[in-house]
């Protein structure tokens, strides 16, 4: 390969391929490679390790603005209300169970709400988790209005003095206008019942998905004001590279990573581990 002042063109090409194969997307990949090539021309790169270190620094820059917001916003008083949203099958319901365990292990009293009143077995699925957690669950009949469940749940959280309320919602594609409006209504009803609620709107993204995750994030954020992301299924071989474009474009903080199917498989998002995975 042609030497760019101590750095092999082949190394840059390999890194470009690695990023594209990690679902980074063409735009972010080209920008990063251009930046690294410019550094190489200035003589700031003397081999593979320098390249990796500089890449890491570039990613840190991308994630810097959102870094301060990765904690969960707790309510000043009363229950903290968390709304879990995302497209079909990404891991919302399982993430809710893991998050409930996360809070319980910190001494918080958690209430769950079965806001997916549509899908077969959805309420049963959350019921099973609630039993395992020893957690109370607010639910209604299948087919009932999710906003009604949400209203009930917030009332219950207030009267029972729960510390945390987590609401499940049905999966929906961001292209389904009517279903997105259903979520907007659910959020509005929650806010009517309790000022300032929901305190968190968490969008769950499936790490296995490609460029569509960026569209999902954009639309869910436009409609609802997403406060944080969960990267689920990060224990798979996919590297969730689209999280970089989402962070660049929307500045949404990644709050958690889902790394398996059990209650213990939730981690606070760690940027260095994320970069390690990309470079592995």
């Amino acid at each position: 390969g042609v030497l760019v002042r101590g750095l092999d063109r082949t190394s840059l090409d390999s890194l470009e391929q690695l990023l594209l194969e990690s679902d980074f997307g063409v735009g972010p990949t080209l920008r990063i490679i251009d930046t690294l090539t410019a550094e190489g021309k200035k003589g700031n790169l003397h081999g593979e390790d320098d390249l990796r270190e500089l890449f890491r620094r570039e990613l840190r820059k991308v994630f810097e603005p959102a870094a301060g917001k990765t904690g969960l916003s707790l309510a000043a008083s009363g229950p903290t209300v968390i709304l879990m949203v995302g497209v079909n099958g990404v891991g919302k319901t399982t993430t809710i169970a893991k998050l409930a365990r996360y809070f319980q292990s910190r001494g918080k009293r958690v209430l769950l709400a079965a806001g997916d009143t549509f899908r077969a077995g959805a309420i049963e699925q959350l019921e099973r988790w609630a039993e395992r957690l020893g957690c109370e669950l607010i639910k209604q009949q299948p087919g009932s209005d999710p906003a009604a469940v949400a209203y009930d749940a917030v009332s219950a959280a207030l009267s029972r003095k729960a510390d945390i309320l987590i609401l499940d919602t049905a999966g929906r594609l961001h292209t389904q206008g009517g279903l997105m409006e259903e979520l907007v209504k659910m959020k509005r009803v929650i806010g009517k019942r309790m000022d300032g609620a929901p305190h968190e709107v968490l969008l769950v993204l499936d790490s296995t998905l490609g460029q569509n995750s960026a569209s999902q994030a954009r639309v869910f954020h436009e409609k609802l004001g997403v406060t944080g992301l969960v990267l689920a299924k990060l224990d798979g071989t996919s590297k969730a590279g689209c999280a970089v474009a989402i962070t660049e474009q929307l500045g949404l903080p990644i709050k958690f990573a889902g790394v398996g199917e059990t209650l213990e498989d939730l981690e606070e998002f760690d940027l260095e581990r994320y970069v390690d995975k990309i470079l592995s």
Partner: protein
Amino acid sequence: ELSEKLESVIKRISGRVVLNEQTVAESLREIRRVLLEADVNYGLVQDFLKAVEEKATGREVIKSVSPGQMMVKIVYDELTGMLGGSSRPLIYAAGQLSVFMLCGLQGSGKTTTAGKLARRLKAEGRKPMLVAADIYRPAAIEQLATLGAQLEVPTFVPRDTGRPVTGITADALMEAASQGLDTVLIDTAGRLQIDREMMEELVEVKKAVSPQEVLLVVDGMTGQEAVSIAEAFHRELELTGLVLTKLDGDARGGAALSIFGVTGVPIKLIGVGEGLDALETFHPDRMVSRLLQ
């Protein structure tokens, strides 16, 4: 309905008589971007661009067509060629029980697809049975049983979820035979292709039931790992077909081209909604338009 990028390819190289190397190279860069943004496998895109370059360089442009339009036509034709023959019908056993096995990653749409298949088979005059072989996910059995009840299709439910899945599926086949049914649809648990034990479970199930179809259910929005995932399942199970789900959204569906292009596993069906009627045959020409939009 072509992407802005391809339109700009057409504009930029208009007014030239022959597709020379520079013209082709510029266009290839844009086409590469379009395909990568459509989640088409990186390696496959490289091979594809080489094939297009060979077809394009030095060709004389037809009088009535602009060089840009010709370039895009070459891309269209190449993609159509690659996806040609990718759609295949389901395989049934003649004169005995047909068994279809559904497998794939977590959340890809297996259980819903099992329901959709049951509905389709019933509408075709067949007598299907659904088998709930996911003993791990909370209320997975209930989910499938609910779909079976909605469709009035018998659902085999494990009496004891402590037993291995192979025993459950073997029992299900006997039950289907005794009820005079003709098609068994086995819904399995989602799993990672790198989970040795869980992949081994699928191999054992296949041995136990000798299926006519081993269908990999893949989320239509899957990114660059699509080929690696499919190859692992194919290596262990010898897949007979693919089902791509959630294509009712705006995902470009590059996983379809990637998996078929690299493994040759045919695409049997696509999922286009959550309803049990939302199952369609795969149309390669529609996929090509979708990829290039």
